[in-house]
Each structure stands twice: as structure tokens, then as C-alpha cells.
């Protein structure tokens, strides 16, 4: 289990993390989402003990990561920029991990090695970005982690490998009860594997909800009416976005979509239905609601 308590970190005057609190339950997958510069990587680096917090603490299975680094023997870490020594050969990296982690699982390593074969004699600097990510995944899954922290793990992987990696993560949770914290910009991937999602913006976790809650809280309603809907109705605080094409309105609503549906019934609609939204849509509309413009989000 990962427990983050009052985590605060500033870079000079800039608050990178602002009193962050959340928990990742054992055997679950927690997805961390946020625009560039929101504080995702800083949060992950602080959770891993790479950065020291100004205030607050990170507990992994009840142990403070910064006071008891030994607990990291049970934590795997896969980052976008892993920082492996470029002059090390693949076999050197394997040796380094094998000798560092007491829980090294040789059987698991051999299984994964067949799945993600890599040239043993090649230096890290000569590996492609995708190969380096594969090496990081291979090594960090071979340590039999109780907790796995991944920062943009699928960047640089081709679609086949990406799917393979996601399947492995699902398998880790299902068969080994591994706790996973994953940060990625690819929200479609998160949607497939996450139990809960945390949206981080300006160093604060704005939402921390299960995928179901998140989907229920933000809904897209399509309504066709003979007469235009009144402006006052469309300006309600919980209506995030309105699009009109002729007599058809598409309304994005957060919180209490049922109430909006009931109100729309009063206008005798020709058509009234809710449409499922993807996590990506929810993220975009929610961030738009927090003053982070749709254009900016799409520009990411």
C-alpha cells in the first residue's frame, strides 16, 4: 500500500507539490493524470525517495520511504528517463539489479526475458528508447515488487509492446497483488487498467475517484428540442460545455447529471440520452473547468 501524507515540495518560490494526500490500496492500480508541469514526475520522484519533501511523508506498507530506504527493495520504478548508466552493458545492469535486490526472482526474470528479449552484450547507450524501457520493465518486474511505480512507461514502445506491457501489469495485479501507481498521458491505456484516477494540477490532487465515480460524475447528454433551450438553463454552474447543431444540443455536465436530465424533460425533448465519455474526454472537460483550457490540453 502507498500512503502519501501532506506532501509538500517547493523549488525556490514555486510550489511543485502542495499538501498532497492520497492512498493506493494494495493490489489496485492508481492512475495519475495531469497536464505537463502539473507535478506528476515530482510527486513520483518524491514517492520513490529520489527527491526529499519539504513537509509530509510517504509510507509504503507502513514504512517511511525517506527514513527507511530499505523498503525500496520491494518497490519497482520505471521512469521515462530511467537514468541507467549508458556505458553499462545490458548484462551489467542485470547483474547490478540481481545483486542489489534480495527478492530478485530468477524464474520470473527468465520468463520476462523470453517475452522482452534484449541484446545482453549491448551497451545501454546503444539501445533505443523502447529497448531501454523494456529493460527497465524487465528488471523492475524481476525484483518481485510489492509496489510498482511507473512514470510514462509506454512512451517509446510500439503498439504491440505497449499492449504486452499493459497485459503484464494487469497480470501482476491479478496474480501477485502488486500495488501499481502509474502516470501517463495516454488516458485510453489508463482506462483499461486503472481502479482509481487522481488528477493533479498545479501541485495539487484535484480529484481522486474510482473510474466508475469519475464516469458517473461527468456525463455527456444529447438532447433534441423543437425550441431553443433558454440561456439561463445553459449557464448553470455544473454545465461544463454546450455544443449546438441545429436542434440538437450536446451538453457536458459534472455532478448531478440526473438533475439536469430531469430539468431537460420539462422542455419536451424529441430525443434525450446520455453518452458514455472516455477518460480522455472527462479529463479534458474537468481540466477545462479548472481554468486549464481545452486548447491547452489538446496541445499537450
Amino acid at each position, binding site marked *: 500500500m502507498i500512503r502519501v501524507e501532506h506532501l509538500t515540495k517547493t*523549488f525556490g518560490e514555486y510550489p511543485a507539490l502542495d499538501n498532497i494526500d492520497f492512498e493506493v490500496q494494495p493490489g489496485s492500480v492508481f492512475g495519475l493524470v495531469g497536464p505537463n508541469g502539473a507535478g506528476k514526475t515530482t510527486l513520483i*520522484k518524491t514517492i*520513490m*525517495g*529520489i*527527491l*526529499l519533501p519539504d513537509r509530509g511523508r510517504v509510507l509504503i506498507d507502513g514504512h517511511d520511504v525517506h527514513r527507511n*530506504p*530499505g*523498503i*525500496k*527493495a520491494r*518497490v519497482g*520504478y520505471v*521512469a521515462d*528517463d*530511467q*537514468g*541507467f*548508466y*549508458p*556505458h*553499462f552493458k545490458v548484462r*551489467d545492469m542485470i547483474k*547490478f539489479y540481481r*545483486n*542489489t*535486490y534480495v527478492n530478485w526472482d530468477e524464474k520470473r526474470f527468465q520468463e520476462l526475458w523470453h517475452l522482452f528479449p534484449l541484446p545482453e552484450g549491448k551497451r545501454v547507450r546503444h539501445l533505443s528508447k523502447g529497448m531501454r524501457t523494456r529493460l527497465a520493465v524487465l528488471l523492475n518486474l524481476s525484483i518481485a515488487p510489492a509496489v510498482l511505480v511507473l512514470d510514462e512507461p509506454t512512451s517509446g514502445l510500439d503498439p504491440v509492446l505497449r499492449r504486452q506491457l499493459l497485459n503484464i501489469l494487469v497480470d501482476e495485479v491479478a496474480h501477485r497483488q502488486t500495488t501499481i501507481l502509474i502516470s501517463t498521458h495516454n488516458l485510453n491505456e489508463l482506462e483499461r487498467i486503472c481502479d482509481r484516477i487522481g488528477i493533479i494540477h498545479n501541485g495539487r490532487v484535484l480529484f481522486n475517484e474510482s473510474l466508475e465515480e469519475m464516469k458517473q460524475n461527468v456525463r455527456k447528454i444529447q438532447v433534441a428540442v423543437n425550441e431553443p433551450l433558454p440561456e439561463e438553463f445553459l449557464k448553470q454552474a455544473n454545465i461544463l460545455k454546450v455544443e449546438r447543431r441545429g436542434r440538437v444540443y450536446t451538453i457536458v455536465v459534472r455532478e448531478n447529471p440526473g438533475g439536469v436530465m430531469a430539468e431537460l424533460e420539462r422542455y419536451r425533448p424529441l430525443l434525450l440520452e446520455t453518452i458514455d465519455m472516455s477518460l480522455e474526454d472527462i479529463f479534458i472537460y474537468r481540466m477545462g473547468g479548472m481554468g486549464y483550457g481545452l486548447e491547452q490540453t489538446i496541445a499537450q
Partner: protein
Amino acid sequence: MGWNKLLPNKTLLWKESKNSWVMAAAFFGYITFGASFKLIKEILTYLDWQRMNNHQMADTFYGMYDIARLLSFNEASAGFGSVLITIMLAATMLGRERDLNSFNFLLAMPYSRREIIYNKFMYGWTQIAAIFGLNALIMTLLLWTVPGIEFPFHAADIWAWALRNILVLGFVFSFTMAISSISGTTFGNGLLAMIFLYFPLGLSLLIMFNLNYWNIMFRHALFLNTDIVLLLTVPTYIMQDDVLLEQNLPLVYGVLLVLTGGLYQLTQYLFNKNHLEKNGEVLVFEQFEWFFKLGTALCFTLLGGPLAMRLFFPHSGHTGAAPGVIIYLLLAVSFWFAVHYLIKWRKTV
């Protein structure tokens, strides 16, 4: 730290050796070439002369006296080279991790910051001790096994040479590591260590340069006392004999050993305080910047003062104090702002 944790971590030492083997090999080659190899070469030359019955040449045997001089500190270039390689070895140990961004994955592993630093120190100290220990052993064996040569030194001299070098270079290594814990890149670490290690010698030379220009004879002033300046410039301990031989050697080297231990603790403290978020900057701790700026402005003013005086008053040997004070102040302020904006510019790049 518990006693069991005083044992170095084999995996971290292995990692250090993989990271620094080029530097270590260069260091070993340099010392071995200047000590053991040179002794072997001189012995072979001597034996050749003996075979050729060239007793006159064999009697003078100058080469062997070079070895004797090396053992009694006199080889200044050898000493400076050792200091330089030691600085480079230490500067890369922390700097390279920052340059490669490898602290990210190292600190994500189940190693504490203290353990990482401790093993870096153990690797560096062991490296230095092994290089000199091995050379001393080879030289002692040669001394004992080659018959018929009157060596102008004893085995004790060889081991004293090795011990002096281990102590001084151990200090230089620790000093550079301490500097590296507050500095950024490998280059920055090395440069700052060089500046601060030779600071007493450099500053006294600058002061003497200025006093000479102004014809102020202040020979007995404390800060100009050569003995004190050389004692404060630790790297010269393996290059100068006349100052040190007058001193209480066990006391001097004892103090050096304590200082080395203190520098190790200081490095641990500073590295633990260093939050690493400012990779690549010259100085990681902003609060040290004023000291850095002040030192740079002072040194450049002392260097540039007499030169500026010659430029503005080329024909007057003695211009009086007032123009001099103004020029020195202007230089100090200019250099302060130059460094200030240089640091500011670096932060934006």
C-alpha cells in the same frame, strides 16, 4: 550507522569501479610509471653499466637519486599530477552521476544517501591506498631482492612516501567530494576544488604581487609567511620538503587525518541537504553564492588591479593611493556584477 554497516557494499563498489576504471587506470599508470617503473629502469641501467665495467658511470648513478628525491617530496610535477588526477577522480564520482542523471535510478534503489556516499569514499580511499601500497610493495621487493646495489634510500623511506601520499591525496579526494556535494557538474566540481585547494597559495601570491606593485615591503606579515601559506595549502605536502621537515610531522599528518574524517562527515551532511533538483548548476546551494561571488571579485581585483594601474598610468611609477583605491573599488564592483550576471545567465540557459 551500525558497525555492520561499516562494511562497504560489494555491489556499490563494483558499480563505482565500472564507472571510474578509466580514471583509476590512468592514476595507477601515472604513479607506477613515475615510481616502480622508473626504479626498475634505473636498476637495469645500473646493471648494464656494471656488466660493461663502467664503474665511473655506475658510481654516479644519478637516476637512482631521482627516485630518492621523489621519495623525499621533491618531485613537484609528480606531486601536482597526483593531486590533479585525484581531483578528477573525486569530481567525476558525484558529478558524473548528475551529468548522466543516474542519481534518479540509484536513489530509487534500496540504498540510503549515506550508503551511496560512504561507498564512494571507500572506493576512492581504497583506490589511492591500493595504488601507493602496491607501488611501495614492488619498490621494497626490488630493494630487497636486487643484489649488489647501494640504494641511496631505505624501505622505510618508500613506505613513508606511500603513507604521505595516501594521507594527502585522501584529503584532496575528500575535499573534492565535499565540494562536489554542493556543486553541479563534473567540470564545476573539479574547478572549484582546484581553486579552493590552492587558495592559500594563490591568494598569498596575489597579495605579494600587489604589494610589490605598490612597493610595500611587509615581509614579516603573518599572511605572507611562506611556511604558514604552504602549511595551509595541503596539496604541497607531497611536493615540498623544506617547510614540512621543520614541522612535527606526526602532528601535521594527524591533523590532516582528522580533517579528512571531518570532510567525509561534511559531505554526508551536505549531500543529505542537497535536494538534487538543481542538476547542472555550478552551485547547488544558493546561500553559498555570495561567498563565491565575493571570492571571485576579490581574486580578480587583486589580479587586475596592478594591470589596470599600468594601463591607466603607464608612465607614473608612483601615482598615490587615491586613484589606486578608486580603480581597485571599481574593479571589485565590476567583477562582482560580472559574476552575478554570469550565474544569472547560466540559470536561464
